[in-house]
């Protein structure tokens, strides 16, 4: 935990969180949120694409299949937990499940920054895993919602549209493709903006996200103790699955940490946008508060260092 607190990115997040708690009417203009979120998604994709360029495609197959299996499994587990143990309504449980099956690209960026800071290597294709894990969970969340909650208002085409052409998925994929086509050499002229500037921009964005997350904390009492506990324990459970799949499919300690973090992260851009349209009966206060107000800060401050140790230990035992 101490190491994560010395990452500038995490410090800025804490500063935003404290600002929000101290005085909830300080706010950054929405243009900062808009611009930085678009930039970060593009840059995450692009960095991944550039690295993928150098990576033998064969190596990605086993981890990719493992990741997809995570994306398919976690939402069902999360649904069962929220529905059975938490006694939430079906739409609520389905929407929350989609969030925990999906991923947070910013948490992904922070785990990479964390590993870089520690000098731990990771596989060059991890951004592909990010993309693979983002899609199925949202689809499955929609599927559960339809199947269990009978929300028949949305046509399948619209649903597909929301999933595959949602802003965050689209920007990630554009970055990935452009980065892959260019490779390290071709991307040289734009490297300064899309690679070097990245961590500073991420720090700035996290100040904003700290403010936004702190506003969510006001709703903690509205969501109740079950969801608060879920927001901490579900990521750990998913991260354990992520670690196991990482080790089984041959990832390094670094790569395993990344996959565990992906599994443990909850979406707060793509999933809420998709669920708001696909499962309107679900109460957004629940899924937004738990994913953005609890799991996101938890992962940034406590989760990532924890998953790293977990990966180290399990690699020692099983690897």
């Amino acid at each position, binding site marked *: 935990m101490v190491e994560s607190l010395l990452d500038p990115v995490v410090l800025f997040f804490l500063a935003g969180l404290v600002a929000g708690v101290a005085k909830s009417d300080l*706010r*950054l203009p*929405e243009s900062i*949120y808009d611009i930085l*979120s678009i930039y970060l998604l593009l840059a995450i994709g692009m960095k991944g694409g550039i690295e993928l360029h150098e990576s033998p495609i064969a190596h990605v197959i086993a981890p990719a299949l493992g990741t997809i299996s995570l994306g398919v499994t976690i939402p069902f587990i999360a649904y069962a937990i929220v529905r059975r143990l938490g006694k939430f309504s079906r739409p609520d449980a389905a929407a929350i499940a989609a969030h925990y099956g999906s991923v947070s690209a910013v948490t992904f960026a922070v785990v990479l920054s964390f590993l870089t800071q520690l000098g731990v290597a990771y596989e060059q294709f991890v951004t592909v895993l990010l993309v693979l894990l983002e899609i199925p969970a949202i689809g499955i969340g929609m599927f559960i919602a339809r199947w269990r909650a009978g929300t028949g*208002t949305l046509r399948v085409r619209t649903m597909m549209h929301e999933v595959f052409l949602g802003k965050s998925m689209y920007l990630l994929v554009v970055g990935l493709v452009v980065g892959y086509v260019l490779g390290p050499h071709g991307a040289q002229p734009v490297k300064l903006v899309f690679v070097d500037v990245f961590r500073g921009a991420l720090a700035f964005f996290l100040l*904003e996200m700290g*403010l*936004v997350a702190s*506003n969510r904390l006001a*709703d903690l009492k509205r969501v109740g103790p079950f969801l608060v506990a879920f927001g901490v324990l579900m990521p750990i459970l998913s991260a354990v699955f992520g670690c196991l799949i990482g080790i089984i499919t041959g990832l390094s300690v670094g790569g395993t940490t990344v996959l565990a973090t992906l599994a443990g992260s909850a979406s707060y*851009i793509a999933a*809420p*946008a998709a669920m*708001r*349209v696909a499962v*309107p*009966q679900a109460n*957004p*206060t629940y899924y*937004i508060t738990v994913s953005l107000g609890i799991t996101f800060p938890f992962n940034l401050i406590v989760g990532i260092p924890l998953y790293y140790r977990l990966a180290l230990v399990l690699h020692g035992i099983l690897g």
Partner: protein
Amino acid sequence: MEKRKLVTIVTEENIEHLVVADIKRLGAHGYTSVSASGEGSRGTRRGDWDLNKNVRIEVVCDERTAHAIAEHLMKSYYRDYAMIIYFSDVEVLRPEKF
């Protein structure tokens, strides 16, 4: 100058595309939308984050269309989304346009 209805809708920005599609389907010849923030029974929407933005949509149309729009939006979105709708009387110079 002829009388028309002005329908004003304040709702979540993430369903703007759905609402606009409905409005057009129900016979409005146009609409104007601006970014907004606000507060209502569904809490504070400060506009500082994707799912937290409001949009204020205005439609000038005849009374019949106004009612069709309001009824449809009420049925489709009131229960699940932050939304208010109100009507007022306006006068226009080119009635054929609205």
